[in-house]
């Protein structure tokens, strides 16, 4: 009996040991799978180009990189305006741009760094995309579609370099493009390595911008299937329109005329004859209202509840509910229109101007608020990138400069923009003492038309204007030769890129 029991014990032990052995064996079957888990929420670089839909998603992703917080969604836009004297800072809070407003940018200033980082992040995403397309990623696409996508990518890259130039390099006129421009990164970076790269000249950087935009013009589709896509994705007219802006910044007025003429017919009505029929919207306020996809909006950054902007124009410019904001239209009131030095106080901007109705006087503070972007949180008003009215005014200015006269066609474009918001009135050539007075009037019209849209800083740069003082905060004017006229290069770039030079 004792032996029997002993055997029972032994067999129980063997059963347990065998069972354990088996389970160990089973568990190791899963080992390789568990050691190399596939993320369920991320797509790896191995399969990122495996379907046409996924590649289209990547194209949208490139646009999305353009509308990130520090870029067109919309910190870049806000900084472009608040440093120019058009706005008055409510809180003098460095977190909401007061360092840039105060014209005190330093290499370590967060805004100086964030904008640089966001724009170059966009550039690298584009470069990685283009590299992958060229290395077989386009295999699942029609050749034409693949080139459409390449063109969209290059348009964004070209514009991103253009936007960088407006902040981090001297204007083109200073030394005719010979000053330091940007490190030109044209291939994708996806791993560790040595990324030292010197700055190309301003001229060479502009050359790259134009190379990208020219490629885009040639390879972009003429239009898309919906007004939404025509506004939010680049087509031929977008590339042309942007080129008018780029050439204007280079003071290459003849080229501005050449490009703009592709979009603007010789005589009214001014409607682009090819591609998307871009034209002025009849009612100014409608441009900034849902669905935001009028033919005037050649290119805008779209936002929805689930991809709302990080730094929204409406949040920064609309007053709070305590100062005239309504339940559906209120913001944080960070910046009001500068009533001293800004365009708001200009006698040219009359109260009957339709654009003035997109401003509001604070019920408590008496401040003037810009209500062009008028939706309350989540602030999903589209952010305009370029509108047809800018093409008209670019052409108007270029014609006046190339002819050095108050050119009749030029005046017609100015009046098209002016008259839209001042129904029944127009400007006459005789009212201008000389061509300079006329040109100044065009610039003033641009200020009225585009306030809050991030255009003013680029205009100051290309025109070589002094950045106005902000007397309410005792901030001095910044002349063109002041180091603060443009931004310094961020400290991280200076430390980590051994070939980088500061401004």
């Amino acid at each position: 009996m004792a032996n029997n029991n002993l055997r029972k014990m032994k067999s129980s032990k063997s059963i347990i040991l065998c069972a354990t052995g088996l389970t160990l064996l089973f568990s190791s079957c899963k080992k390789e799978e568990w050691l190399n888990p596939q993320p369920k929420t991320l797509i790896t670089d191995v399969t990122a180009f495996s379907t046409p839909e996924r590649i289209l998603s990547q194209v949208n992703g490139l646009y999305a990189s353009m509308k990130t917080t520090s870029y067109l969604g919309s910190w870049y836009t806000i900084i472009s305006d608040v440093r120019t004297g058009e706005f008055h800072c409510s809180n003098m809070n460095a977190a909401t741009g007061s360092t840039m407003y105060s014209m005190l940018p330093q290499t370590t200033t967060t805004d100086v760094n964030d904008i640089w980082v966001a724009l170059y992040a966009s550039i690298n995403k584009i470069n990685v995309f283009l590299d992958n397309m060229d290395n077989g990623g386009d295999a699942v696409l029609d050749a034409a579609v693949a080139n459409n996508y390449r063109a969209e990518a290059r348009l964004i890259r070209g514009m991103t370099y253009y936007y960088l130039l407006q902040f981090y390099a001297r204007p083109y006129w200073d030394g005719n493009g010979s000053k330091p421009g940007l490190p030109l990164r044209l291939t994708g970076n996806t791993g560790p390595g040595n990324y030292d790269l010197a700055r190309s000249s301003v001229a060479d950087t502009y050359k790259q911008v134009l190379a990208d935009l020219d490629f885009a013009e040639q390879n972009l589709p003429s239009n898309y299937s919906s007004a939404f896509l025509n506004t939010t994705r680049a087509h031929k007219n977008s590339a042309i329109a942007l080129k008018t802006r780029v050439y204007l910044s280079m003071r290459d007025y003849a080229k501005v005329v050449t490009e703009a003429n592709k979009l603007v017919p010789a005589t009214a009505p001014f409607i682009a004859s090819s591609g998307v029929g871009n034209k002025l919207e009849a009612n100014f306020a409608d441009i900034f209202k849902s669905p935001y996809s009028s033919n005037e909006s050649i290119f805008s950054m779209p936002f929805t509840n689930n991809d709302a902007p990080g730094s929204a124009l409406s949040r920064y410019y609309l007053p709070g509910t305590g100062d005239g904001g309504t339940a559906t239209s209120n913001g944080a009131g960070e910046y009001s229109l500068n009533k001293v030095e800004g365009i708001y106080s200009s006698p040219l901007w009359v109260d009957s101007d339709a654009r003035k109705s997109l401003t509001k006087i604070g019920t408590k503070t008496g401040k003037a608020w810009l209500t062009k972007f008028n939706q309350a949180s989540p602030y999903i008003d589209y952010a305009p990138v370029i509108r047809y009215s800018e093409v008209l005014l670019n052409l108007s200015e270029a014609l006046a400069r190339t002819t050095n006269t108050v050119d009749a066609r030029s005046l017609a474009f100015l009046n098209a923009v002016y008259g839209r918001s001042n129904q029944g009135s127009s400007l006459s050539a005789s009212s201008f003492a000389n061509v300079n007075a006329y040109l100044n009037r065009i610039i003033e019209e641009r200020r009225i038309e585009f306030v809050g849209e991030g255009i003013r800083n680029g205009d100051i740069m290309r025109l070589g204007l002094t950045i106005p003082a902000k007397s309410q905060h005792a901030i001095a004017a910044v002349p063109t030769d002041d180091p603060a006229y443009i931004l310094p290069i961020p400290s991280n770039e200076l430390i980590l890129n051994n070939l980088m030079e500061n401004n």
Partner: protein
Amino acid sequence: MKQSNCPNPWAKPLFFTSRWSLIGFTCLSLLSFPNTIFAEEYGNSISYQEEIEINGRIVNKNGSPVAGVSITVKGKSISTSTNSTGNFTLKVPRNSVLVITSMGYQPIEHLVLNSNPINLTLSESNEELDEVVVIGYGTQSRKETTGSLTSLKGDEVANLPVQSFDASLAGRSSGVQVNTSAGVLNQAPVFKIRGTNSLSLSTYPLVVIDGVPAFNDNDDSGPSYAAANPLSAINPADIESIDIAKDAAATSIYGSRAANGVVFITTKKGKRGNAKVNYEGWLGYTTANRLPELLNASQYVEIKNEALMNDGTYNENTNYYGLSKDANGNTIDTRWYDYIYQTGTSHSHNINISGATEKTTYYGSAAYTDQQGIFQKNGFNRKSAMFNIDNTTTDWLKLGVKLNYVNENNLAAMATASGGSGGFQSSSSSGAMARIALISAPIIGPYNNDGSFNVTSNGFLGLMDNTGHLNQSRLGFYNPVISLLNNYSNNTGNNVQSNAYVQIKPLSWITYKSVYGIDYRNVDYNNYSSPITGEGLGSNGSASSVSSKRQRWVWTNTLTMDKNYDKHSFNLLLGQEQQRTTGSMFGLERTGQTDPYYSNIQGGWQNVFDYRTDNQEINNYLFSLFSRFQYDYEKKYFFTANLRQDEYSALGLNNKKGVFWGISGGWDLAKESFWSSSSLGQKINAFKLRSSFGKVGNVGGLSDFGAINTYSAILYGGQPGLTYSVTGNPDLKWETSKKFDVGVDFALFNSAITGEIGYYKNSIDGLIFAVPLPPSAGVPNGTANSILQNVGEMFNSGLEFTLSGAPIKKENFGWNSSFNLTTNHNEVVTLANGVPSIISGTLDGMTITLPGESAGMLYAIETAVLIQKLAVEFLLMVMGRRCFINRVLPERMM
């Protein structure tokens, strides 16, 4: 603090038995089966021997009875234990040898010749050096360890007003640095063993609770203002012992996770004897102390006007600071501290029942604690229940189960500014309580004279009587009274930590053990910001909720072989372990409150957004094989070798596998005859030299998918998008730590004084850090423009000294005191190529790391030289959230 700790006199064995069988029925029905069958069979098989009944009494040196003493027949499974009067009875074969053991006493053996009463006296063992320490996959007598280990009794931490045990370890062990935070409940302390051992990865030690590595990412605050430390999922009162392993000898068995040291937590188990019911509780009060003294209203006005004058903007009519009057015409002089801080009341209650029979030990506890912090509305409460049962089923089979359930609630209303979880706790946020307490102007109050809140349209503190003559829009940030009254930001955690094991001894010298453990941690975060508060104004009120789930299982299989040949003792451990952790996070935010009545995510809202759901997937796996060989000769010369191979999923494709090892030796000089016979040996009764060297690793804090290049989903105007978001590194491997340690453990005057002196050097190479690249390279990552790489070297070296003594050791009164001292020198040897320094941190504090210096230094402003410049920068800093002081000057402060 009050506490009572009394064995329950009325608890009877019957009470215990019925309770045990109830639980046994519900969770352990499997275990009761072999228990009855095998025990009976075995009992029958030895019945041919002649048995006699013996009885006796066990007392200590003072003649007091010792309860719970284990009396076992050598080589047999017959055993009993003494009752509360020290008496026992037992049927044993004639000529048996009894082995009498009890914790804290030296074991004795006694030959049974006849049934006469056996009265024996136990002598106390030398407490310090005889204790058992946990060494990872086993235990060892402290005398035999060759590693550097500090052991603490759970009772030392159980009665401190902390939320998790780690917060109570400050100052308790040499080489252990624990800094608790500024009064925020349940915020994980900074917990480092022997210095900073990593620059980018976790520096938190691995915490192993009953063999299962716990979640110790040390900050589980997530998207809520209430701090949460995952280690609060264990009630400190349930802890039997804490063993802190510091050197390679003690930690290398944990291979790739050992670089920061290992902390072993052993929960309480029942002790031999009748059921004991034990209640412990405490009550405490907490207040903020050493708050800086601030200007009163009139001083504030004086200084601020002086500042305006210095700035050149003072104007006696249009721009000056003045006092405000309240409704009764009295000058307002607000002490904002009174609105921010409170005296917190905390209490804790813990009841446990424990005991053991010959075959079964059990411990069960239920506990509740409710604590208030020094910040208003900051609270913590926890309900916990734990049950531990171990059953020696037969002489070759042992089974056990632990179940620990904890529900914890971390409560807050506003950001406390304690740092640690990014934007949520940033000291520079507009709603940071500590900041508001300091910078809100004393010349205004939270209420206007008509009883309404003093608040601007932005939610900030308004000017009150300064309206109209001060060129400012506000005199502080958010009005805290509104936020504290209306908002909440809480998290609720539900944790289950459980394990079950089976231990089989097919031969007397072989033990096979299989332990399967789980750690499930589910946390719900719930936030609400009322539209009338600064936090909720912009979104017209918001509610957000996030559900976070993490599930970990660990399965450990070990084979231990113990063999003695004459004076040689061998112990060999072979093991395999798998650990898999999965989880996810999901959240929503809703804004635009449709009625003031709604205050949770389920209420009425205009908008809905996804919230904190991006890529929040957890999936990692660690597969390990390990071995330990221990040898000693005459308990005089000791040698230990550890070897572990780990494979970890989060590492680069080319380097998932790593091998780690440690060797150590010890020499107990006091055991040598020349020592014990010398006059020195009379005084120094223990003197053990030990040294170790090994290579261990660190992977703590690595992102699960950070080593591969990935694209993540994004929207473009609602259109589907995909964007290149993470740059991985297929060569990413472990951080490697080479640890060297030499030390001596000693005891003087018959162990009245014990101590330890040690030297260590820990050289870390292949430091993982996010090597910064020029921003213009545009390499995407969590930290933009950086790629995780193994670069750089750093070392920590130091001396440790511990002295413990028991100057008074009487039966009813004892006084122990312990003193420890540690020096640590941290030096970064090299950083990555082309990276002269790493500047890291947030606005709450930037640090710099440079080769040749310690990691994480602060640069300070040269105040004396640039007083005017400083004023400007200081203003920028106070007024700005994103601004930091721009000048970096080479004046260093540690």
